């Protein structure tokens, strides 16, 4: 999958699953902060939901706790995490979860 496709898919997932009604997925900037002010304004409950959805939809395992924090910064960081995890799974040959 192209990186831009993955980002688009993540944005659509965020809008649909977090009930960001009225928001056009393409209007979300790749680097916009997901949490706190000045971005999407999501919170820790959303982070848990995103982690669960990423595991379910993209078949990669999300680490728990502070270790996972950097990947939740933006759509870009989420897509980088997913790509890296998939590449790891491909080289190690381990089956993806979910």
């Amino acid at each position, binding site marked *: 999958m192209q990186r831009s496709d993955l980002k688009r898919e993540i944005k659509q997932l965020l809008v649909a699953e977090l009930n960001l*009604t009225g928001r056009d997925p393409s209007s979300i900037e790749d680097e916009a902060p997901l949490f706190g002010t000045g971005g999407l304004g999501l919170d820790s*409950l959303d982070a848990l*939901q995103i982690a669960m959805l990423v595991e379910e939809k993209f078949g990669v395992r999300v680490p728990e706790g502070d270790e996972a924090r950097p990947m939740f910064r933006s759509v870009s960081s989420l897509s980088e995490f997913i790509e890296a995890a998939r590449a790891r799974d491909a080289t190690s040959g381990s089956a993806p979860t979910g």
Partner: protein
Amino acid sequence: MPRTQSVIAITGLGAVTALGNSVEETWERVVRGERAFGPITLFSAEGYRVPLVGEVRGVRLDGPEDFSRTSELALHAAREALGSSGMSDGGRPRRIGLVVGGSTAGMLETESTLSVILSPEGAVDPAARDEALGRMLSHPLSAPTDRVARELGPFTRVRSLSSACSSGANAMLVGATWLELGLVDAVLCGASDALCRVTLAGFNALGALDPDGARPFDRRRRGLTLGEGAGFVVLERAADAAARGKRAVCTLLGWAARAEAHHITNPEPTGDAPSRAMRAALARAGVTPADVDYVNAHGTGTPLNDPMESRALVRVLGEHAARVPVSSQKGQFGHTLAAAGAIEATITACAIARGIVPPTGGLEEPDPECPLVHVMRGEERPIRVALSSSFGFGGMDTVLVFGRADAVQRGAPRRSRAVVVTGAGVITPAGIFGGLDVADVPDSAPEGDAIAYDLSAELDVERARRLDRASRLAAVACERALGDGTRTKALAGAEHVDAGVILGNAFGAVDATSAFMRRLREKGARFASPADFPSLVPSSPAGHVSIYLRLAGPTLAVADLATSGECAVAQGYELVAAGEADRIAVVAVEEKSQIVDQVFRVVFGPDRRDAARGERPLRREGAGAIALAAEDVAIAAGLPIFARIEQVLSWWQDESAFTEVAPPPGGARGGAVVVFGTAGAAIDAVLERTGWSECRRISCAERAGSHEAAGGIAVAVAAATLAKDPSIEAVLCVGIARGSGYAITFGRWRARSS
């Protein structure tokens, strides 16, 4: 020492927890610092990250066909409490009430029923599926209350409530107000919750469970451990206990409930609402922070709760925080959710009566973020005044203050306050009605049974994104009822509005629970939805409304099947009359549910659509709300006054109580009207015997829908009808279902000439 009539004595205790099957057994093991955690055995927890729980063992938990683990836990503890109060047989007062808090009710059993209903097409025999559907609604929030009432009754007044993890504390708050308002002579109050898949999977999904078992206030803490159990107490006036020669265990001196109006799962970090509740409860008790000798903390062991609670305590206790011991037992028998406040009340009562401060089991390395006097080992110490806190999902915070049996209540006794209606709001498939227009609901023309129009124009969609359908309907109705730009204020980031929310809802989020269970069955615990879980708690819409409209007063849900709306009005009225809240939005809501529709089709037959043939009207969906205020508060704030509440009566099984319904002023012809949700022979009988049978009748169910919240719409219509038509002097609103009855009389409000 002199005693006043208003002192409330606790004369009976009952508890069942993972640590023990009685108060005594639990207490002894609590003091020894024992922990009772192990992997769950009630069901397979394969795939759950943390299967560790505090499970009750060694109690026989079965009963009649409709029993649930929660109802049997409740019965077990309630029986012990009533027995130890000496009221089991001879010593029973004439008017004894029952208040039961809960959040899961028969969820464990409902999960088994759902496993049949959710089976793929063809995998289950249709007859078995219908049989399961017939059982699907057997465990509403009110079912454990019914079970206790049937076994230990008769009770003159019965209430089922939920405010998530503060339910048990709120059961005591409600019981105390009943005594203060003179509605009962004694009250058995408590709460019960059993473990189930929904809560264990839900807290797993929230990442809120400590794999090593809860360690409240410990720097290594990673979350809570779920427990189960029940706690009950008997409250009565100290003078009555003395007159029957019964020694009190301790006294209940003060109580207060406040809402955080912040977030559905996360505590507001500064602890503002808990500290407001603590201050109000201490003031109610007539004591100062300097008088507090022990604090029984909520202390869940989650990373966010414990520092927040510590900040609130330090804020309220000030310099005394450096000497007042604080402990939590959630590292020993777990977080028993709704039951927590009730079980911990029995622990606090034992601590006071025996002069022993119980420890925080599981705590080894106190977190510097929690700068309190922690209790590592149980210690002897006289306790004259103790405080117990309970905080629930949705930010529902309740604090109780207990005193030694010889403590004298110094708080001024409160007089019952006059209560007025300051607004109404209704939403049905026919539209949204606010203010005086609510009187038009019975003449409206709904299309279909669902609200098909777009609600987003009525809501701030960004702020409302977490609100499920029931919460959205409730928010729209409450906003119309409260008026005065409540949402505008919330949007402007203004201070909280000092109003509470009481929700009436019979069955909770049935379809959402089913969807959550379907995911759990099909994908495993790892894919249980953390964001959907909070909406499964019965009090969730009340919490969502309080967050959305920034309402900071007492917030909780009540349930009483088809009279859940009327029950909510009674609850709201009591809290305002007793001075626990100045303003309250009372709302009853029923969302369209595929499963509830299927159940009713199985139970009542397929075709109920032809109202002209005398069959019952469509269920539909909708919400009805009224805003209540203390009369003096409404006048001072310049709120519109629709009506004055003249009388609120409720009865349970014993219908002789309805003869107390005051006859219409000036007789039947003198401009009196009767309003009800769904008509019935029981209502006709009440009207016949109370002089209201000749009055004009307005039935709401035909146009608004025949469902469990119809009574909430009826009270809104009643208040608006009175306000709109100056020829009407009084409106009686009656609702009766399965032996539970409510009669609410609205009268014309007139400014007193001074």
